[in-house]
């Protein structure tokens, strides 16, 4: 492995075999982590007093379709506010088993970011409390940021959605009836 800064060496010392590679392109610090036990690795990055990457800046993914195996890469941007440092974490995810540990137990901000990755890339996050589509609608077919999703792809028309229990007139009527009943009982 090439010469790395003391901080990256420290991360390698702490996480051991979980660090698959570490590099410093363009002055950024980048580590590739193993997908197994990912949440524990992040917990260590967050809580270790010498690293203290306590701020999750961003989560996104890249699709290396027909370029690289495994196909997907989930990319995390961490910030240590005390030490004024950034760290980029890359995690490879195969297409056949596109699941990553959710970071929502560590940072609640991961909720929306992971929903967006699921929506646009179809990568699942295990133990996510609310993994729904976020930018697109529920009936959307496919995951548009995948490289095999054609840019001019059309989507089928969606029939009007029936929403339960929000028909206001019915509710007000029931409410009025109940109110009349209670008042009648009183008299």
């Amino acid at each position, binding site marked *: 492995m090439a010469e790395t800064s003391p901080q990256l060496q420290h991360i390698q010392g702490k996480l051991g075999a979980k660090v698959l590679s570490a590099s410093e392109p363009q002055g950024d610090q980048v580590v590739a982590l193993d997908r197994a036990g990912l949440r524990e690795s992040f917990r260590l990055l967050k809580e270790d007093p010498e690293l203290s990457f306590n701020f999750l800046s*961003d989560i996104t993914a890249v699709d290396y379709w027909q370029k690289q195996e495994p196909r997907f890469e989930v990319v995390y941007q961490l910030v240590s506010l005390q030490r004024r440092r950034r760290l980029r974490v890359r995690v490879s995810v195969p297409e056949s088993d596109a699941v990553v540990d959710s970071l929502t137990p560590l*940072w609640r*901000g991961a909720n929306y970011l992971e929903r967006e990755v699921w929506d646009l890339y179809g990568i699942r996050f295990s133990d996510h409390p609310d993994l729904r589509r976020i930018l697109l609608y529920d009936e959307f077919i496919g995951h548009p940021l995948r490289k095999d999703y054609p840019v001019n792809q059309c989507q089928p028309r969606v029939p009007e959605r029936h929403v339960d229990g929000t028909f206001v007139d019915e509710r007000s009527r029931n*409410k009025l009836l109940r109110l009349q009943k209670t008042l009648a009982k009183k008299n």
Partner: protein
Amino acid sequence: MKADNPELPREIMELQMGPSHPATHGTIKFNLKLEGEKVLDCDVELGFLHRGFDKSCEQATWTQVIPYTDRLNYASSLINNVGYALAVEKLIGAETPPRCQYIRVIISELARLFDHLTCCGMAASELGAITVGFYMIEARELIIRIIENLTGARLTVTYVRIGGLKHDLPQDFAERVAAAFTTIRKLLDDCDRLLSRNRIFLDRMANVGVIAKESALDHSLTGPILRATGVDYDVRKAFPYLVYDKFDFEIPLGSHGDNYDRFLCRLGEIQESMKIVEQALRQLPVGPVWIDDARFVLPEKEKVYGSIEGLMHHFKIIMEGIQVPAGETYSAVEGGNGELGFYIVSDGGGKPYRLRVRPPCFIAMGAFAEMIKGYMVADIVPTFGMINMIGGECDR
């Protein structure tokens, strides 16, 4: 009849607020669960303005992406331009000349003024202080006129280029800015006297939409919302880019994390931005605004029309795009609403392989439910106004 009469039937009411509501600046929908007027739960539905920014960028050359970035946060499109150009330049390994960097600082701060004036003015007028709204829009108009004079457009400016700027500042730029700032300072002074200690305004803003420091960090909030809780994180100070380390400016901090602190943080930042612009204009060095590298810079028009090499050079850059070396990088700038990051992956061609924007207000919307739980329906308007959700950036 008392409201807490146990004999009256109670039930939780579901209310759908939006997507077309005057206070939802773009299009956004809140699915509320209410008990009376109290908000028990709020599920935010967004994406109404999703137009596939990331996917579109993968189809365009590196230079053609710049107009797309204008349409992210259209209240501060110049910052988006600068942030994108800085990310690509980081991947190329190019550093722009000092004059270009100073001009980029100036335009970033003008855009921040624009953004904050829009946000504060709109928030004030939504709460009934329509005079303040008009005063701030007048101040904003002065900024827009400067931007129009500089770039030729009011909102979608496309002024920054990879490796430089569209053109240098106009002759009378400094005088125009000085004249505008004098008026803006007076207008802001009027707004301050009308609003900052106004009882009605305070009642609507103070102790509303509170988010604690730990919770704000947990939710990855940045910008004025985070600083209103007292966390000193501004990308301009934490990770200085361009020439921000050469200026003397403060980062206004709040303490309560409520809407009023967010408002004051933004007002404070308006003052600091004006200070930065004035310092930058005083220190502005002379020199070129483009990097000296023919791989990324279009040749001069005389060469294009006067020689075959120049014509081919022009053609290659326009048709194939500049060739950015393969690699990936992340670069962040302080946008109007917080950390605006660009994560780019290049496969060595003329088009981005992947371009991701870290949208500050999308992430802030993730914390909105937490901010509004337990408050009244009417408190949604100022809280949402102070997040300053811009549909173009939130939904991309």
